């Protein structure tokens, strides 16, 4: 996990966004000392609920950049993910896919591919980039934790996207208060060695199977009006001139011109 947070650190630095404006709602406990060094506000919320919590943060203060980091994304958070993407709230959803719930050793997750679980599972795994893309995510990517540079660049790119971006990180499961020594380095390397970079692949074709190599890269990058854009357009239509658009005073939108959507 330290590895991933150090990549976050680099990504945030590259993006040039003020750290105090970034907040991370998460459903996995990070080492707090590491989070402190990131210089962001951090919420460890209920299992799988990082996206709705982040939705509240973003809508409460549209000036924030919210980065939900989730572990129970497709189990407890499955419906939140689907609706979050559809709604297109400006969030950067980071899914740490460790194929198994490492903390409760051996239990399988919905993304588990057959060979990766010690006891094997007979259920089909999820394909996050495809699911995200088909629900309307503006950005999808997948990297392993050892693709440090690519992943950092991807975070820097996605965090400024107007809309919901999804980045899947393939990494071995963390233990609480873990440091890098606790991570199964062989597994980390195994994922890296068994991956192949194929940018702009159709997300439909990037499902993970035990037989094939893990396809990593950036798969989706498109534009779509965000929730707040549509909210303002719709309320403006109904209420008329008296309506003051919500959350458009934010500095970033002016810079990137991202609020043009919805018109």
């Amino acid at each position, binding site marked *: 996990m330290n590895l991933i947070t150090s990549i976050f650190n680099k990504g945030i630095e590259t993006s040039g966004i003020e750290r105090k404006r970034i907040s991370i709602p998460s459903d996995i406990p990070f080492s707090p000392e590491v989070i402190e060094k990131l210089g962001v506000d951090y919420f460890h919320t209920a299992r799988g609920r990082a996206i709705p919590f982040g939705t509240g943060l973003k809508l*409460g203060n549209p000036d924030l950049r919210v980065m939900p980091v989730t572990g129970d994304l497709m189990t407890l958070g499955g419906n939140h993910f689907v609706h979050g993407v559809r709604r297109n709230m400006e969030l950067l959803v980071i899914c740490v896919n460790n194929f198994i719930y490492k903390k409760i050793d051996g239990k399988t997750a919905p993304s588990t591919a057959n060979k990766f679980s010690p006891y094997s599972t007979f259920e089909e795994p999820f394909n996050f980039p495809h699911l995200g893309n088909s629900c309307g995510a503006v950005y999808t990517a997948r990297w392993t934790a050892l693709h440090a540079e690519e992943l950092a660049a991807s975070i820097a790119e996605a965090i400024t996207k107007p809309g919901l971006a999804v980045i899947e990180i393939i990494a071995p499961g963390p233990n609480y208060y873990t440091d890098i020594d606790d991570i199964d380095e062989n597994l980390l390397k195994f994922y890296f060695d068994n991956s192949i970079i194929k940018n702009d692949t159709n997300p439909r074709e990037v499902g993970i199977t035990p037989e094939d190599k893990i396809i990593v890269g950036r798969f989706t990058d498109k534009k779509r009006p965000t929730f707040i854009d549509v909210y303002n357009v719709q309320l403006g239509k109904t209420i008329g001139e008296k309506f003051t658009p919500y959350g458009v005073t934010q500095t970033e939108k002016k810079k990137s011109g991202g609020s043009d959507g919805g018109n």
Partner: protein
Amino acid sequence: MKADPKGVLTGSHNLSGNQACAEGALAAGCRFLGLYPIMPALEVSERFLERAPRVGATFIQMEDEISALAAVLGASWTGKRSMTVTSGPGLSLMMEHLGLGVMLETPCVIIDIQSVGPGLGLPTRAAQGDIMQSRWGSHGDYEIVVFAPSSPQEMFDYVIKAFNLSERYRIPVAVMSDAYLARLQENVVIPPAEEIDIEPRRYFKGETDKYLPFKRDKDFVPPMVKIGDGYRFHVTGLTHDDRGYPIMNEECQEYNVHPLVKKIRDYTDEIIEVQETGIDDAEVVIISYGTTARAALKAMEQARSAGIKVGSLKLATVWPFPEKRIFELAKKVKAFIVPEMNFGQLVFEVERCSIGKANVLFISHGEKGVENIDDILSAIRQTQQMNEVKKCIIELKKGV
């Protein structure tokens, strides 16, 4: 602090309970509503949504009640007063985040318009079946404040109080209405903004690097900060220390969770609000809350005019429960009558606090309509024939 005039619709209006609820929230400075639509709570969101853009409030319809309350907790940390509105099935889903709200000490208000359960029940019929769930529904130890209004005017007033207490103690506060009050239209007087007292959020005023999210003041309530102001804080729903860092041991559990209970238990005298009528000479006291109190007061008046000394104790706050007051009364009176629109929930609390010193009669009220008082009157008559204290709850038999 006084209310923001933008949200206050000063004047005398004919409002339903649900509309009064939305007005109360806006007057109290609520600027975020996260919801999932459910009968019979729809008019609250309808009114709120209609007024929100003009007041500068915002709203979102989430995918379920779980995420509705999650979004409310998030919005509350951005400095906005936030609330959600639901009914029984939604409240069941919210229990997870109610507990998280308690642990993260996040001020917010939950409006529950009760209808009959269990399961999906009968969404248009009034009930008071969620009253124990509101207190005990989430896992672990916590204390909560719950209001039960009985008229649209009280709805307006109590929603403001609910927001104030949630900020004062940094807890989720619930207001339990029901499907009857939801539609009941009455006159509601909304005072000018400068007459509405608002409890401001307690903000941390030190330097940004000195902030500890759970460092408590003397009254066990830690000051808050707004997210995005550069305080770089860490909060977690796990057992945590002052820094908000998870610490996995017994000492920290005690250090963390005991104050969550104490910050309410030590201040119950400030929080509890009851309205007493004709208690001084009463032999029989009707204990009621919510819309049932309307019938209780009517029944009391009729019994008084027939020469029976009946008093009424109406609970404005159901939780924390007014234990001391009921214990005092139990020593003086012959019997308590507890009408509830359920099959017995708060009556057990009354029995607990009267510790065998007074008879406790339970009435499952509401079958013939909320304001029908026949069952309460027959209970009053029954108390007149009682000579000894029965050490159990006496349930009123139908047709007595």
